[in-house]
């Protein structure tokens, strides 16, 4: 197919396409972190979980030839990391933030160790659904290639919001995140709830990692993640611990991440690397803008060590 000249329309189109492509790991990691933080614990190790999810997904997909088994393996690996984090944090006097940083470095180191033999081979990609079939313009078709994990992420965001509101599990997580004492008084064991929430959060981050290595960019390198796991944590704060907001915030971050390539595609190469920094700048700006010297953070789970 020959590219059709569509002029400056290419920029918003490329941003839209990029938002959908780039945002998926953000969606999964931020939903995972949202769940963990709603239970009153912070897992800063999700960057490590993401990278380890990327390699385990890639390796299993390559060995079995089935990308979905890769996603499953990544989720399992992520859950294991979450369980480890949750188990360590159970002990008295352990700081979840310090453990998270250690887990992040541990996950990345382990991933690089196991990942050496997988830098060359090519694993099968996850399929995408061409929502742009109605258009003849290849740019539109390219932008609307939507990976099923993105759709799954969108559904998951809605499902999680519904879970927090209308299921016993969701309410239990919120109770634990808001007041350990109230949870104990109800006979809930806060540690197990947090352990499971961290494990589930880790599994989601693992899926986000599998997306990186199996779809976009779609190969395993040591630089497969560019800090999505860490930025997703800032994103959860920006999204005020609301899953649906997490989804929109992830899209916004994805769109900003696509700004650089989009401008490049229409020939603006001045300050190219600066545009690549856009998501990081956005993270900083959003965190500053949504903070306030005068009032307590809104919507923050009260048991979070950030808010204490």
């Amino acid at each position: 197919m020959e590219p059709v000249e569509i002029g400056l329309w290419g920029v918003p189109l490329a941003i839209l396409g990029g938002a959908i492509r780039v945002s998926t790991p953000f969606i999964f990691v931020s939903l995972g972190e949202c769940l963990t933080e709603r239970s009153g614990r912070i897992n800063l190790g999700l960057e490590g979980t993401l990278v380890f999810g990327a390699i385990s997904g890639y390796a299993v997909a390559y060995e079995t030839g089935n990308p979905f088994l890769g996603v499953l393996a990544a989720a399992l690996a992520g859950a294991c990391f979450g369980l480890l984090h949750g188990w360590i944090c159970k002990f008295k006097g352990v700081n979840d933030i310090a453990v998270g940083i250690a887990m992040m470095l541990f996950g990345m180191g382990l991933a690089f160790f196991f990942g050496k033999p997988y830098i060359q081979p090519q694993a099968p990609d996850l399929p995408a659904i061409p929502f742009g079939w109605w258009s003849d313009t290849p740019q539109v078709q390219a932008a609307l290639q939507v990976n099923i994990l993105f759709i799954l992420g969108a559904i998951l965001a809605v499902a999680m919001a519904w879970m927090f509101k209308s299921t016993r599990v969701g309410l239990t997580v919120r109770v634990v995140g808001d007041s350990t004492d109230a949870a104990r008084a109800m006979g809930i064991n806060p540690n197990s709830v947090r352990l499971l929430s961290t494990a589930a959060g880790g599994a989601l981050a693992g899926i986000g990692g599998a997306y990186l290595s199996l779809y976009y960019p779609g190969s395993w390198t040591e630089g497969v993640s560019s800090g999505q796991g860490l930025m997703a944590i800032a994103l959860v704060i920006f999204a005020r611990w609301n899953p649906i907001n997490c989804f929109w915030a992830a899209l916004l971050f994805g769109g900003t991440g696509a700004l650089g390539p989009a401008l490049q595609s229409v020939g603006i190469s001045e300050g190219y690397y600066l545009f690549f920094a856009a998501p990081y700048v956005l993270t900083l700006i959003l965190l500053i803008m949504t903070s306030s010297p005068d009032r307590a953070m809104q919507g923050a789970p009260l048991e979070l060590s950030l808010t204490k």
Partner: protein
Amino acid sequence: MIHTCENGAISVQTLHTTMRFGAFTALDDVSIDIPAGTFHALLGENGAGKSTLVKCMMGFYNATSGELLVKGREARMTDPKVAQKLGLGMVYQHFTLVPSLTGAENLVISRADTPGLIDWRRETRALDAFMTKMPFHVPLDQPVSRLAAGEKQKLEIIKQLYLGNRFLILDEPTSVLTPAEADEVLGHVRALTQAGEITVLMITHKFREVSAFADDVSILRRGKYVGGGSVADMSIEDMSRAMMGEAPVISTRSRRDTVKQPLLTMNGIKARDRTGLKPIEIDDVTLHSGEILGIAGISGNGQMELMEILTGQRRMEQGDIRVNGAQYGATRAEARAHAIRYLPEEPLRNACAPRMSVAENIAFRMFDAGKDGKTAFWNDSGAIARNAATLIKAFNVKTSSPAARIASLSGGNVQRAVLGRELTGDVKALIVSNPCFGLDFAAVSSIRDRLVEARNQGTAILLISEDLDEIMELSDRILVMSEGRIAYETPIATANVEQIGQYMAGHH
């Protein structure tokens, strides 16, 4: 004795309950009968064993010896869940509602049989039907954090009834309520007991509530049952004598005439409260030397923010604070220059470094003050030790040594230590918030003596307190804060508790 009422209230008896923690006997052979459908008051000072007794009843502690009878049958309270199953429920002094959940969510999740999927339409209908039978109304669709203290208290009681508990323990239920709210809540609770729906055991130290609402009373002192019976047969003097042991030495706090000159003025102050949603507006308040200016109000009406504005912890959007005519921004240098001191509430948390020693903590005002007003670089450990020795003696702080961690002291001693620190030297103004919260009778009395003494010597004292009795007892002038504003001002001579209570509740 009636063990169950028709409408479900149940009886509870403790027989020879003893509770030892190591060598310390917290409860010594306490027997109390609470027949079904009665309102029973449990009186005692801090540390008298009231909470230990109810914790044994609720299964949080296993009594060392003794029996507990529920509905006349022996019950082994090995676990709080057993108590719940038998229909015993407790309303804690500190709320156990989850702040970010709505009232409805709180009720539904606290049930033992919460379904996995919650059908909110059905639950709402069921809750509405349940609420029509309740004596008081609380909005269930709002997050609990947005409810006023009185509403939270009501919701706690409603929760116990919703859970089907028929024996309620109320732990100082009115400590956060206005007198009018307290009367309303207790009146409804009393009506429920009279209807035979519940039996109530209320922990309290307010004689007024005992004589107005309770049927029977039991009094504990130092872990022992020292008296009780039908409230109708006991006078307040009897109760107070049993509670305190001998008649307490009532200090005659004599108020000297003082020269009252304006010292600190607040003008047109606007700020935001903690949630950032509600405005705090203080138009024109002047604090004079030699007076105690009391600020009454129910917690959450902006007093905490006012304290934070005065300590420089909260940003003002508008307005200014002036001390002796000069702008005041509450920096350490300014506070030192004007000799303005602070005693925030819960000083261990808000005005101490808990793990530092008593000596270090009470040196916070002087450790960096060198000669002739300059800041010193080197600590003078000799001066710090001398300062500690003087203050510990002068303010009667009971500590094992000046080197002990301040966190190891009891609440009253921490309060006295910090008050001592803040009142050394020539103090022009002292800003105090809830200075006697959670202290026992003797500690309260000594703190109040110190405040009045400082006033007599010409210090200006701004007393922010949720305890209206304390405000009435100490103040020369009273301001009432409601919804972030000063709603009312009166000199003590014309102050009237009912009227102040109405302004506190915002009915004006």
